């Protein structure tokens, strides 16, 4: 057999269920206190600094990290439970999500000790927000075409250029970005990019908002003009960022956030059809639930592999491919099924408002964090086709 895809039936350990109860109780309290409305994913301001601190105080940020950095040394499967419960509740996770999922682990692997000691505990306390600086005006999926330069100077680097589509840059305290430190070589076009830690909110960095079709404000253009980054903010090997990027993608791509982004419309549809659905609604809901359950089982399986120290890059790409296509189609399938819902359904207005937003959100889901085309390229490589 050519391919070696494995999706073993990993189960969340018993201790996760106690944690799940705690997370649900916490979220219920937050909802009751008016921090957020789980039925309103389309709020304009998704930044919630106080909520972020309270999540940190619970010990649910950086929960897999070493204790000396403020972490809890808990498992990826426990983190998985926290992530999925937050997502399903539509909790405002924007401020801490990127730092917790991606930036923290990168720092743990590549940052000097004094920086880890400074920054990681603050992530764990929910105090700081991270952004990721990858795309540029002429470099999106083709990451290695990045042109923003980091020029060596005394004690550090001077940054000049522009990052774009940078989510949360307007609220972020830090960014982890890739900049060009050398030209690519003939043998290796991926050579010459270096990963940096950038302290935001300083002169030399200008953040310009970009409007989105949902009406929300999430992403930005970030312009660097002779912005100084000290030597100890280089993360990993100079010119060798390409070696560092790939294995972390499995974390970024296989989580529950990759199929639950529009989940709320399914819940609302079930509410609208009531306890005795007609055959059409029942079949539609049954299929969607079967597909959802399957994706979650695949996603948990990848989490289990990560916990076991494996690098399931292809499996993770499959989860994101199938998951994002599903969450993209979900609002449209729900709209189909809702077409004959009784006018008198009490939540009809909520469902329509949610569909309006989910349909506008849908196009981005197969683009952000690795497009469908890029993912299928990775899967094809894994199959031995490239």
């Amino acid at each position, binding site marked *: 057999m050519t391919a070696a895809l494995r999706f073993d*039936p990993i189960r969340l350990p018993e201790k996760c269920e106690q944690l*799940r109860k705690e997370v649900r109780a916490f979220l219920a309290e937050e909802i009751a206190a008016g921090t957020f409305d789980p039925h309103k994913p389309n709020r304009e301001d998704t930044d919630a600094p106080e909520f972020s601190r309270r999540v940190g105080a619970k010990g649910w940020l950086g929960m897999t990290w070493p204790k000396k950095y403020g972490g809890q040394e808990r498992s990826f499967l426990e983190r998985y439970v926290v992530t999925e419960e937050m997502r399903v509740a539509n909790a405002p996770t924007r401020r801490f999500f990127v730092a917790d999922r991606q930036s923290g682990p990168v720092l743990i692997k590549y940052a000097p000790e004094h920086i880890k000691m400074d920054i990681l505990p603050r992530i764990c306390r929910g105090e700081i927000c991270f952004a990721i600086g990858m795309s540029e005006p002429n470099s999106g999926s083709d990451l290695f075409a990045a042109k923003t330069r980091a020029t060596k100077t005394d004690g550090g680097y001077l940054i000049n250029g522009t990052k774009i589509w940078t989510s949360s840059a307007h609220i972020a305290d830090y960014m982890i970005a890739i900049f060009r430190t050398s030209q690519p070589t003939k043998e290796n076009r991926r050579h010459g990019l270096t990963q940096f830690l950038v302290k935001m909110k300083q002169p030399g960095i200008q953040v310009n908002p970009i409007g989105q079709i949902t009406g929300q404000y999430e992403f930005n253009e970030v312009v660097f003009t002779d912005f100084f980054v000290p030597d100890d903010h280089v993360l990993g090997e100079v010119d060798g960022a390409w070696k560092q990027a790939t294995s972390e993608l499995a974390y970024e791509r296989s989580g529950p956030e990759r199929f639950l982004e529009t989940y709320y419309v399914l819940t609302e549809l079930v509410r609208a059809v009531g306890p*005795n659905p007609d055959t059409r609604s*029942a079949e539609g*809901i049954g299929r969607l639930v079967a597909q959802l*359950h399957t994706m979650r089982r695949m996603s948990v399986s990848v989490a289990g592999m990560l916990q076991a120290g494996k690098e399931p890059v292809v499996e993770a790409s499959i989860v994101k491919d199938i998951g994002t296509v599903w969450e993209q189609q979900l609002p449209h399938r729900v709209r189909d099924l809702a077409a004959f819902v009784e006018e008198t359904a009490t939540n009809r207005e909520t469902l329509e408002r949610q569909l309006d937003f989910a349909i506008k959100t849908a196009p981005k889901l197969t683009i952000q964090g690795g497009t469908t085309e890029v993912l299928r390229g990775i899967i094809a490589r894994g199959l031995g086709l490239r």
Partner: protein
Amino acid sequence: MAESDNIVVETAEKIFADLADPQTINNDKKDSWQAPLWHALSEAGLPLSWVPDDLGGSGASLADGFALLNAAGRFAVAVPLAETMLAGWLLAQAGISSPEGEMTVLPASPKDRITLDADGALSGRARGVPFAKAAKHFAVLAHGKDGVSIALVDASKGRIESGLNVGYDHSDTVTLDKVQPVTVKPAKGFDQTTLMLMGGVARSLQIAGALEAMLDISVRYSNERVAFEKKISKFQAVQHNLARLAGESAAALAAATSAADAIANAKSFDDEVYLEAASAKIRCAEAAEKGGAIAHQVHGAIGFTSEHILHRFSLRALAWRDDFGSESHWAVELGKLVANRGADELWPLVASR
């Protein structure tokens, strides 16, 4: 691919490789491979994997038996292995010993019903019964006035209208008209839905296995076939199709092995197991359609010929969708269950797995 890490699967894979090589049996127009294959499987005790030692079987675990069915799917085995395993398992639920030889189960559809009358005779019609014509015995789930009973029936006592499914395997209509069973025993706490879920998971594992094989032969073919002066595997359109096939294969495998694991560790067939088993059948059936179409697309005309082995997998995977409740049936039932539990109970159900 699931590597064989248990002795049952290792034994089966060796037998399949020796006696059920897809190309060899596809060339054999007289089906003369069937008898030696069945003999070898029987010698190894595989058809009665799920029957305890004291009831005449080999007493393998549910988990090992499920893994065996997945392997059988990878070879698209066209002998009543899954059917005999299910029949033996069903009989064991009522403590009935399994006889030697091929068996199948009645009914094989949630819509059909066999009744047990006061004289202990069985009546009713079961459609789409896989391999009924090849079976020496039927394991029958019957409804009587005291509830569900399980019976062992001599196959020659039933009237069989022969038919073929989409995959050219026997799928027959069996009519029982006041047939006296060899043995009949009450099966307290057992019901037809449980049998259908179990059969559905067996079929899901077979479909997942067939998809793994389709992915494998499609990838291999794309790396051999040259068009427009290069291997077709180098065309991005072909690569992306195969990536989607890998996704469908992976989804089927994940859904089926998860459901098998759920049943193997379940104390009862509760809502959680229902979600797992119904979802597996629904998702695997969808994958059979989508994945099979891609496998054929990659192969072009050659895959449409009877000489090529692809149809052994693609058509069987499609045919297996129909057994023990189609995906439409299970989707309606799962949808009703979800609606009945209520909107706010959906996520807790999904998250419980």
